[in-house]
């Protein structure tokens, strides 16, 4: 537990991803099983159970501290676990431990104990710990660990430890479980790679490169196929031994949100496709799909109103046979035959688009631009391509429609992280429009971007921010409303969380309009027209 606490502290305070990787791999090398596996699970967020309830922590605190002082403290600290970690008053007749138990002992102990046993054990541990150790325990126990380390960084760390491509770890990852004994045996060179063929699991998807001018030379109607690039969410639908799961592109299991679709899966196959909403043969907009996103348990009414549907792009395996090695043209034949047998309200085949020349493709792309974001552009795929996880070169291309552009005014700036930590490099910008409360004309924030400019431009922007400071809100620096950015973005959505009522997808700074007066920047209506409200 001591080592685990120190690891979390080191990771929490380190900014650079590279340094985080070094810290984590050192820990994983030096720490024995099964502690390292549990630590890995805690950090990667794959623990499937709470050790104790948050409410228990609060209750214990209320029993031993004045509630008014506790409230003041919690309000000041801003967070329960840390407040408890810092303010925990030792029990009068505290049980002294000779040593703090190891991480796996702690986990095991909590899992074995009854409700009152859990309570007693938690008190003993808290009495014997430093504030940092208490924080680690409380975060571990209630799975609230946020130390700024992405699952991707964790996997890259493992890949580097074994000196394999990250794709290898990606393919294994979802088939493994804490405390990952088989994984570490393999990393240590003591066993073969774990076999996950009989686990219903996510396998990482194949991705496309943005097309470049020189690429068109190699594209012909004989060697390549074209399809729409739908703007839904890319999913993987997997069925095995009567079980079904739907995974997002990042491997999150989102089956519970789309139980209507899940119930339509009675096959043993892995499909790659786009999840959208379809009512009466009509594909809904991204805003329609949004009604379903993030709903853990959608009501029947909602599912009837916005039924989930998958436009299938590809098939990775069928009835236990791995199809990934076959060329796309072969997989496409199998997929076509397969989809015909499925419920057509739930599954349809991605249509192939006719083209001969580059001009034909350009026309298709233009047509996509007229769909209010429903279709993002054109996919161009090599017919001979096997299905390769990751982003292999010269296999699949995406040709997105031109981004939308708006002139927005810089409102707030924030320091970046890592190399950029001394620069104001994160910018929040807004458009003119009536304030929802006062109806006065003001700037309404529409988004935040931290790329799209060169290093030289960053220096100029940093200088500009420093010379135009207004108020400061914690790390957020307000600036004078004078600088205009041309902001590019792929699409916009209606959003209740933003004051402006809109949220942008993939916003970036396309140009800095040093010359443009702020009052000539765009108004919120321009964004409303793009969304189509």
């Amino acid at each position, binding site marked *: 537990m001591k080592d685990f606490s120190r690891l979390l502290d080191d990771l*929490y*305070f*380190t*900014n650079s991803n590279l340094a985080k990787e070094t810290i984590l791999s050192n820990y994983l090398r030096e720490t024995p099983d099964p502690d390292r596996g549990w630590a890995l699970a805690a950090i990667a967020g794959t623990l499937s159970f709470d050790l104790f309830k948050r409410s228990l922590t609060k209750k214990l605190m209320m029993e031993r*501290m*004045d509630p*008014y*002082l*506790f409230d*003041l*403290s919690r309000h*000041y*600290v*801003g*967070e329960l676990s*840390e*407040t408890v970690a*810092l*303010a925990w*008053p030792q029990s009068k007749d505290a049980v002294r431990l000779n040593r703090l138990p190891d991480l796996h002992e702690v986990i095991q102990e909590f899992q074995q104990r009854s409700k009152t046993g859990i309570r007693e054990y938690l008190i003993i541990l808290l009495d014997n710990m430093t*504030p940092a150790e208490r*924080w680690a325990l409380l975060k571990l126990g209630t799975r609230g660990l946020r130390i700024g380390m992405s699952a991707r960084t964790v996997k890259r760390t493992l890949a580097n430890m074994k000196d394999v491509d990250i794709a290898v770890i990606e393919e294994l990852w979802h088939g493994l479980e804490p405390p990952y004994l088989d994984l570490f045996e393999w990393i240590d060179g003591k066993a073969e790679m774990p076999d996950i063929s009989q686990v219903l699991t996510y396998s990482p998807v194949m991705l496309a490169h943005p097309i470049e001018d020189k690429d068109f030379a190699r594209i012909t109607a004989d060697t390549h196929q074209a399809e729409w690039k739908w703007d839904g969410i890319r999913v993987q639908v997997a069925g095995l031994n009567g079980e079904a799961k739907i995974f997002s592109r990042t491997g999150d299991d989102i089956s519970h949100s789309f139980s209507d679709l899940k119930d339509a899966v009675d096959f043993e196959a892995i499909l790659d496709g786009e999840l959208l909403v379809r009512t009466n043969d009509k594909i809904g907009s991204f805003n329609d799909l949004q009604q379903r996103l993030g709903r853990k348990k959608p009501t029947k009414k909602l599912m009837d109103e916005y039924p989930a549907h998958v436009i299938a792009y590809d098939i990775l395996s069928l009835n236990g046979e791995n199809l990934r090695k076959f060329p796309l043209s072969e997989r496409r034949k199998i997929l076509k035959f397969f989809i015909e047998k499925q419920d057509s309200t739930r599954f349809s085949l991605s249509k192939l688009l006719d083209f001969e020349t580059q001009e034909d493709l350009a026309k298709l792309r233009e047509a996509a631009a007229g769909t209010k974001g429903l279709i993002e552009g054109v996919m161009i795929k090599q017919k001979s391509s096997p299905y390769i996880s990751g982003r292999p070169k010269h296999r699949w291309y995406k040709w997105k429609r031109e981004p939308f552009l708006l002139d927005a005014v810089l409102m707030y700036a924030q*320091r970046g992280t890592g190399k950029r*930590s*001394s620069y104001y490099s994160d910018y929040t910008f807004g458009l003119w429009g009536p304030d929802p409360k006062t109806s006065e004309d003001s700037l309404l924030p529409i988004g935040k971007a931290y790329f799209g400019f060169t290093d030289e431009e960053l220096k100029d922007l940093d200088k500009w921010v420093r010379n135009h400071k207004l108020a400061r809100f*914690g*790390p957020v620096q307000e600036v004078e409303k004078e600088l205009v950015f041309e902001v590019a973005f792929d699409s916009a959505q209606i959003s209740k969380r933003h004051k402006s009522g809109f949220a942008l997808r993939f916003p970036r700074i396309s140009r800095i309009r040093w010359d443009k007066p702020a009052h000539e920047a765009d108004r919120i209506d321009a964004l409303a027209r793009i969304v189509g409200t």
Partner: protein
Amino acid sequence: MSAGETWMAVRDGLLYCIPANCYIDPHEPVGRAIITHGHADHARSGHGEVFATSETIAIMRTRYYTNDNTQETALNYGERFDLGNGVTLWFASAGHILGSAQAVLEFQGERVVAAGDFKRHPDPTCAPFEVVPCDVFITEATFALPVFQHPPLEREVDKLMRSMATLPDRTHIVGVYALGKCQRVMKTLRLAGYKPPFYIHGALKRLTELYESYGQDFGEWELVSDIPRSKKDYFTGKVVLCPPAQINDRWSRRFANPLPTVASGWMQIRARARQKRAEMALVVSDHADWGDLLRTCEETKAKNIWITHGRVEALEYALKQRGINAKSLDLIGMEEEVGE
């Protein structure tokens, strides 16, 4: 009226002794001022007459808070001075920084102690806190919440030493307040066996020299600005000290692979450490923590506690629970970030 209230008052947001016509730590220019210590929220410029310890007066001169027209009265700890109209002033050490003092005021058999800022943890760079029994104890409340339980300084310095050993290719840039914190951190590092020269930001120079003139020894140190900018790797593996605002600002770009660190009592709160963009947080406080505040108030045996600044509500509440009269003074101009 309870003790002290006939002759001590808050006038225009400033703590004032009526018969002596004298203010304590006023944040704006006044005729007569008692200054407990040299931090900017207690010592200001423009007073006509200043009463303080000789160290505090030296600090004020260094920071140009006094000029040739200021009438200075330097007192040693324990030295009694007649302020007129029957008021006697003497200073007791406060353990906060070099020269820091509690102002002890006596009038008609009553004793009021204005503690200024103080701490009870050991500090090799200043005299330890002295408990002075009194009728009214005027205390700060900077860290007056149960979440503030300051760890021993050695543990924090050990954290820094360990980090330097595990990450020898990084330059540890420690953000410290120029007066007090800087010197306490340097001294404690020396006591922990740190041998190489310190590299310091220009803003820390004069006060460090002033500490040295009072016999403090920090070993060898050099100004960062004396090292050519081209020698980026020169500082690798060393400790660089600078004001907290510089750890992540343009100034820090001159170091290869910097590791921004902040030493302050606020670092106990993780989010605050992250907000300062510190990669390492050293909990080093020059104020009393929750337990020490309560303990000190009780040890003075004062029937009345007046609270100047900080988390006033919490301390007032906790003291009242212990049966001690406590009230907030609503002084203006006290900034909690200064010196911490």
